[in-house]
């Protein structure tokens, strides 16, 4: 390539044509390593035709020889097919290295009760490593990779506050069936002053120093059928688990970002917005998407994230 006419005048052929008087083009043969590599791919293709599905013939195709795949179908019957990626996947899921390595543990976890898993360091180590991946693929987009959630949208799983219950049974039910977290919008039921009163009462429940008179007026709405807030939040305002209603007496806020507000007015405004606009949050059901074993692993993982109940 770097050769010039003057340094090697007659070593290689040229195309025999000169442009602009003296520009000529070499006509070198292909490098032999390239040519042999090309022939090798041709040989590879012919071998491939023999062993793998290749050529279309009428409404079918050549299936390949000496390359059958045997796997177990859903009923446990042995089934043998010609080589194809779908059968290869099933074989990989049943006999592959990862499948074989994790099967003993998976069987053990699937057979064990939650108490046994939580008390066994070896099973817990396996659960953490398997469930971390499942959580990352399926749960993290909403709840965050660490489970911290997004205030106003997705609950924090990493704290010890559980809207729908924090026992392993509750968490499993939540994963399997999903939830619809719903609070009606009161913006058109109450006027601004009344919303202000209710927000004051709600903040007083968690120890905020709000206007006492406003809080009393708000209490009258909250604790009676006028507002009916106690239906879900209960008279004690600790929240009804079956409704996923929030505990209003602690410092944990999942919808209104009260802790993010600078002053009391800001906190009240945020609570007011939630009362006025209501809440609608849906947790999808996972029983169709994840296997029973995967849900079990996730249950233990999520339970541990929040130091569950």
């Amino acid at each position: 390539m770097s050769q010039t006419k003057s340094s090697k005048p007659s070593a290689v052929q040229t195309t025999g044509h000169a442009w602009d008087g003296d520009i000529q083009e070499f006509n070198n043969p292909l490098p032999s390593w390239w040519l042999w590599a090309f022939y090798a791919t041709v040989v590879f293709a012919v071998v491939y035709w023999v062993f793998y599905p290749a050529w279309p013939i009428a409404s079918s195709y050549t299936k390949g020889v000496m390359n059958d795949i045997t796997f177990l179908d859903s009923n446990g019957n042995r089934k043998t097919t010609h080589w194809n990626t779908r059968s290869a996947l099933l074989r990989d899921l049943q006999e592959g290295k990862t499948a074989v390595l994790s099967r003993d543990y998976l069987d053990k976890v699937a057979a064990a009760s939650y108490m046994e898993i939580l008390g066994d360091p070896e099973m817990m180590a396996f659960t953490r490593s398997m469930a971390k991946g499942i959580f990352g693929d399926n749960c993290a987009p909403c709840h965050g990779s660490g489970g911290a959630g997004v205030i106003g949208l997705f609950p924090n799983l990493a704290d010890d506050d559980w809207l729908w219950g924090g026992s392993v049974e509750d968490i499993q039910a939540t994963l399997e069936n999903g939830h619809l977290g719903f609070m009606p919008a009161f913006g058109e039921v109450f006027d601004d002053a009344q919303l202000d009163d209710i927000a004051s009462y709600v903040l007083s429940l968690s120890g905020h120093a709000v206007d006492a008179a406003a809080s009393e007026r708000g209490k009258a709405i909250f604790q009676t059928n006028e507002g009916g807030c106690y239906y879900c939040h209960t008279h004690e305002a600790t929240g009804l688990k079956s409704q996923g209603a929030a505990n209003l007496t602690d410092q944990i806020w999942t919808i209104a970002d009260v802790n993010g507000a600078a002053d009391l007015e800001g906190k009240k405004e945020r609570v007011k917005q939630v009362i006025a606009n209501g809440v609608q949050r849906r947790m999808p059901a996972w029983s169709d998407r994840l296997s029973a074993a995967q849900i079990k692993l996730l249950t233990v993982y999520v339970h541990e994230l929040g130091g569950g109940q």
Partner: protein
Amino acid sequence: MIKHESIETNAALLVILTLIVVSIGGLVEIVPLFYIDDTVEDVEGVRPYTALELRGRDIYQREGCYLCHSQMIRPFRDELLRYGHYSLAAESQYDHPFQWGSKRTGPDLARVGGKYSNEWHVAHLRNPRSVVPQSIMPNYPWLLQTDLDYSDVQDRMRALKATGVPYSETQEEYDANVVEFGVAAADQLDILHAEENLMQQALTENYDGQRARVTEMDALVAYLQVLGTMVDFSKYDEGYFADFR
């Protein structure tokens, strides 16, 4: 025997021979798929998109979602773990053009339907980093602000009908759809009622969380929420799909 040199020095001949060589590849690899019996799996549940989902699909293409998101889960263990069951040819039989893709800057979306809530999709499309801090996806805030233009949805359905998608215009076509897809789906595939069906679905489901309006967000989320949900895989033995390959 044509000499190498005579091909290389004759542009017209070079073009013709190149076309012949390239078209052999296409003919051998693509054409047989149209007459090999097993190409499209025999499964229940796959139906054409409703009018609203169809407009959502148009927006998906308009915004170039396919440039970063594939809709093709391959039959590998890691893809199964991350995305779910591998895609079937039957599942994209009414897609024109199909959205399989091969570029995954973002995750595959073939089974994103039902995986997240509508609220998640709205928050995520408006600003992906509000829910996934490490995301590099652009913001699409205008989807929530732009009213959906569905004035030409009937024409869009007719165009797809011309390519073989069974949207119905006559009573016979409607009756055929009832047999094939059931009454509820057949109603949605009726071109003559497309606009009212679209409004109905958008207002009932309220995908975008804004009751009073039908926005482009409604359409796109409706489309995303149906992706990969039409086939009930619990009804089939895993070995069944291997029989089609």
